[in-house]
């Protein structure tokens, strides 16, 4: 298992390399180049050249590319164009906020989504099933930023229960959770909707399997048939889909961070876009890509925990 993990990490290096390369060259295709992006359309030619020289953009593209990759390997994400501060420590500061949000939402989605999926599957075509399906369709369809605003109106403005913005004092757990609640609810409800749908269809498939009939023929109580034999098999497709949903979740966390003015990678990225800080933007995108690769690694490792047919060799 550990060997497999190490190998998977090594295998993800080429993936990250390709992603970093794509990001690097995409940045270079910005109209007029990064210097124009920073200085604006009316900058003089001299000013642009001076800035390009300062940023090292006058060097050949190959050199710049090698320099970019070299820094990445050393864990150096470069310096911000705007304030000249190194980016890596800033990423280190905001990353925990994004991870907190992502993991708590995913957890909420799993805790609510899996039981709801099982119940709707068991009450197929009954009232609860239609109710659950309508609700999860709504959850999948409502954009997160809109959902965030709705929840904010209800819980913060009408009921005055939770704060509208910020992440609170990170050294105070209660304050952190207090500020985390609404953003987590926003993303978590979306995850719940996705996971409910997936669980429902996975369960409906598994319940048709012969081994479920065998379990019943053995005289096992329905509780063991459903939650032992059926659900355990349903977990295989559910986990694959959770891997996909986690990526959707990360994309949406950017919107939620903006809506709730939470510090985080998303807020940092949007800030970089606004300020045309392409170095920061490029670095944050690489971090996001690494996050996605890491989640996929976790998903692949978790298969082996439930399916004996998966071999890590």
């Amino acid at each position, binding site marked *: 298992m550990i060997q497999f993990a190490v190998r998977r990490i090594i295998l993800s290096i080429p993936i990250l390399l390709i992603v970093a390369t794509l990001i690097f060259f995409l940045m270079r295709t910005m109209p007029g180049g990064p210097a124009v992006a920073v200085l604006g359309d009316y900058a003089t030619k001299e000013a642009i050249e001076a800035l390009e020289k300062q940023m090292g953009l006058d060097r050949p593209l190959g050199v710049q590319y090698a320099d970019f990759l070299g820094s990445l390997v050393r864990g150096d994400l470069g310096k911000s164009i705007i304030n000249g501060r190194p980016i890596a420590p800033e990423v280190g500061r905001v990353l925990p906020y994004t991870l907190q949000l992502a993991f708590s939402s995913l957890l909420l989605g799993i805790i609510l989504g899996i039981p709801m999926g099982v119940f709707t599957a068991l009450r197929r075509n009954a009232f609860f099933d239609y109710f659950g399906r309508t609700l999860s369709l709504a959850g999948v369809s409502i954009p997160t930023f809109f959902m965030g605003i709705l929840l904010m109106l209800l819980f913060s403005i009408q009921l005055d229960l939770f704060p509208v913005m910020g992440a609170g004092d990170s050294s105070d757990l209660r304050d952190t959770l207090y500020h985390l609640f609404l953003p987590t609810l926003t993303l978590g409800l979306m995850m719940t909707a996705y996971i409910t749908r997936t669980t429902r269809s996975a369960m409906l498939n598994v319940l048709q*399997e*012969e*081994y479920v*009939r*065998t*379990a*019943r*023929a*053995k*005289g*096992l*109580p329905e509780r*063991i048939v459903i939650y032992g*034999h059926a659900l*355990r*098999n349903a977990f295989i497709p559910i986990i694959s889909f959770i891997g996909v949903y986690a990526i959707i979740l990360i994309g949406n966390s950017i919107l939620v961070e903006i809506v709730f003015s939470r510090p985080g990678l998303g807020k940092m990225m949007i800030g970089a876009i606004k300020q045309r800080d392409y170095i920061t933007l490029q670095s944050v995108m690489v971090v996001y890509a690494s996050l996605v690769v890491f989640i996929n690694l976790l998903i692949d490792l978790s298969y082996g925990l*439930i*399916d*004996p*047919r998966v071999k890590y060799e």
Partner: protein
Amino acid sequence: MDLGIFPRVVGAKKFESKKMNDRPLLDIRNLKTYFFLPEGVIKAVDNVSFHVGNREIVGLVGESGCGKSVTALSILGLIQSPPGQIVSGEILFQGQDLCKMSPEQLRKIRGNRIAMIFQEPMISLNPLYSIGDQIVEVYTEHYGLSRQEARKKAKEMLEKVQIPSPARRIYEYPHQLSGGMRQRAMIAMALACKPAMILADEPTTALDVTIQAQILELMVELQKLMGTSILLITHNLGAVAEYAKRVIVMYLGRVVEEAPVIPIFESPLHPYTVGLLNSIPKLGSKAIGGKKRLEEIPGMVPGLNDLPEGCYFHPRCSKGREICKRKEPKLFENQPGHRVACWAVREGW
């Protein structure tokens, strides 16, 4: 009254009344299992009656879709509902009607007093549970054993079904076993609680021909050892001829013929049974000379949602007359123990 109150010693036999002695282990009376689909009502099992005696092996034969499996699933109360439902009839097991039992009572009989062996062990065993655990469950559920005790019993059971090195196999998963070994594990699971009745639904169909005989031999051996009755559901007439004492032939949800095994193979009465037997390839002078072609039953099996009036077999029957199209023939006893549902036999055409 229950048979179990009588001591099972040879000397006591004469005190048992004849009637009690004759009471079959399983007695199905006028069973109707229908499926209510949007397209219409499918009468998968339509007024079926038969019985299985103590320690008896009864063959239930017929083409795919004739209601053999649905009959077995009805006995266990495993008909998926909706759309399926046991509409009427009685399934008396040791004198008690399984149809009248609560789901909980029936569950306690399943896997304990009546067990089932399924067709394809690959898909009938849970891929995520070791075969040991799948047998252990039966013991912890029905005998209330601890996992440790159950594991010991499971190991004994694997030994009984002749799985080599059971101490190691108990930890293996279905995908690590061969088809034959998987079916042996399935049999071990079914026989775990020494059931009085085994429903074997095509137990060898999915196996290699060389393995089929081994599995059947094993089943019969254990059947004798444990005193179990077997309802052998199959379209393998060879297996039926070899092991069954009586044969029940079903066609489209109805029993068309029932007889002890020798009369059914030597002098089948129903045209459908005759057709079934003629469609077995035979070795012999006729076949070798190439003079006789392998026979088939003409026509197609009608869909269960598009059944003809009268006798279901009449469109394919060479002896069919006007009455066959109008009126369903009832089973009647032609000779002692040999019942058949056919106008031609009844009227002596």
